[in-house]
């Protein structure tokens, strides 16, 4: 379980997060939605420890992130997996070496078992034929899948995804969403996803929080999101004509 308690973050004069509090339950897929520039990525970076909040607390299973010892911090990091918006694969390494990287650093497995584990993760995300390819030699969708394979290599308890669908075609986007949902259920992970993709919201959102200009504006799930009376949320959700039509049909 991840708890956020009154998280504030600002850069110079600009306040980006204004007291965000929420709970992400274990084994669930949680979405943080909001417009570009609303503070989603900053919030995600605060949760994983890449940015330090100005005030407020982030707790992983009741362990406070800000006051953890170095040893606890390293242990926690081995429980985290993250999928970045641009995949962030190491371009000097092959896809297999990318997945092997966390294993080489933190796993006590033999070299043979590390290779087996890396190949298992790559097979799991459907990259059986891409072991020896380099990130620049594969498509954006394959890069995302490789990044997911790297993120799950150490069997993490928590998976964080920063806009996993950005730059992908709708079909690949749906496949990535399905993969993340399957992996979350399979590994019983707590997954937190930043997105503004409404397809992801409809299919994945066991819990959804809507961020607007650094404030948590709304909290709910994929069932309740279309029945909210929050004006800002509705503007965001029904911005697409497709969803407007769906909503109209549902009302009729």
């Amino acid at each position: 379980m991840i708890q956020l308690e009154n998280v504030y973050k600002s850069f110079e004069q600009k306040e980006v997060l204004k007291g965000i509090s929420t709970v992400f339950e274990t084994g669930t897929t949680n979405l943080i939605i909001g417009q570009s520039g609303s503070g989603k990525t900053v919030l995600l970076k605060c949760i994983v420890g890449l940015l330090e909040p100005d005030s407020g607390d982030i707790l992983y299973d009741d362990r406070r992130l800000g006051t953890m010892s170095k040893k606890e911090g390293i242990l926690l990091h081995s429980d985290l997996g993250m999928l970045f918006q641009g995949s962030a694969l190491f371009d000097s390494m092959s896809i297999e070496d990318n997945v092997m990287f966390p294993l080489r650093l933190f796993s006590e497995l033999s070299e043979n078992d590390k290779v087996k584990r890396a190949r298992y993760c790559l097979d799991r995300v459907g990259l059986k034929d891409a072991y020896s390819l380099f990130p620049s030699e594969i498509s954006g969708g394959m890069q995302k899948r490789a990044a997911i394979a790297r993120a799950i290599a150490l069997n993490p308890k928590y998976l964080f995804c920063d806009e996993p669908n950005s730059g992908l075609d709708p079909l690949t986007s749906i496949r990535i969403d399905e993969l993340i949902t399957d992996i979350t259920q399979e590994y019983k992970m707590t997954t937190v996803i930043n997105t503004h993709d409404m397809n992801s919201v409809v299919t994945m959102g066991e819990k959804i929080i809507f961020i607007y200009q650094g404030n948590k504006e709304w909290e709910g799930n994929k069932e309740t999101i279309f029945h909210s009376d929050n004006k800002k949320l509705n503007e965001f959700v029904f911005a697409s004509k497709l969803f407007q039509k769906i909503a109209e049909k549902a009302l009729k």
Partner: protein
Amino acid sequence: MMYQTFSVPQRWGMFFKQTWKEIEKLGADSLPITLIISLFMGAVMTMQIQLDIENPLLPRYTTGLVTRDTLLLEFCSSILCLILAGKVGSNISSEIGSMRISEQIDAMEIMGVNTANYIILPKIVGFVFFIPFLVICSMFCGLAGGFIISISTDLITPSTYIYGIQYEFVPWFVYYSLIKSVIFAFIITSVSSYYGYYAYGGALDVGKASTNAVVNSSILILMFNVILTKLLLS
């Protein structure tokens, strides 16, 4: 950042592997440019000194002697390192800067990797370890350039040139050059890594970081050259 960089590596095996890669990339790949520049500079230096010292009071071997001392004292350490600050410095800062803006460093940090130690330390160790070899090669090539002039032109005879480069040889000049180059190699790698590591923004900012890395490491090399000359030769 220095404390993080010089902490004990998380995995020694990976550290040695990375260091070997950096020796290849930063050191061995700089060998061709070092050899070419040194050969031609040695040749040009010999010609210019011979043409400038047309004084009957000065012995003919002065050309070899001056070429040798200029190469050993300044060219093979300071000037070579200024040239390498451009090649190696921009390589390091742009590589690390690109890793920073494409979130590769963030990805490592989430895994719990000490990124400064994993990325920067092998570069510093690799280049500092390899630079004496580059300097020695540069010395031989520079002197060889002068020798080629002595056999291919009638400016100076080969025997006079050879006598000149052996005349009153001071071994300390070689050590002086090596000590300077090791310190300059540290400056180049650490300054460039710093600018790359703290780059943010986009491609333009990585370019700016590379420029700053080269300019600032060059200035530091020139400043330390004065300090080291005072300390080691006075």
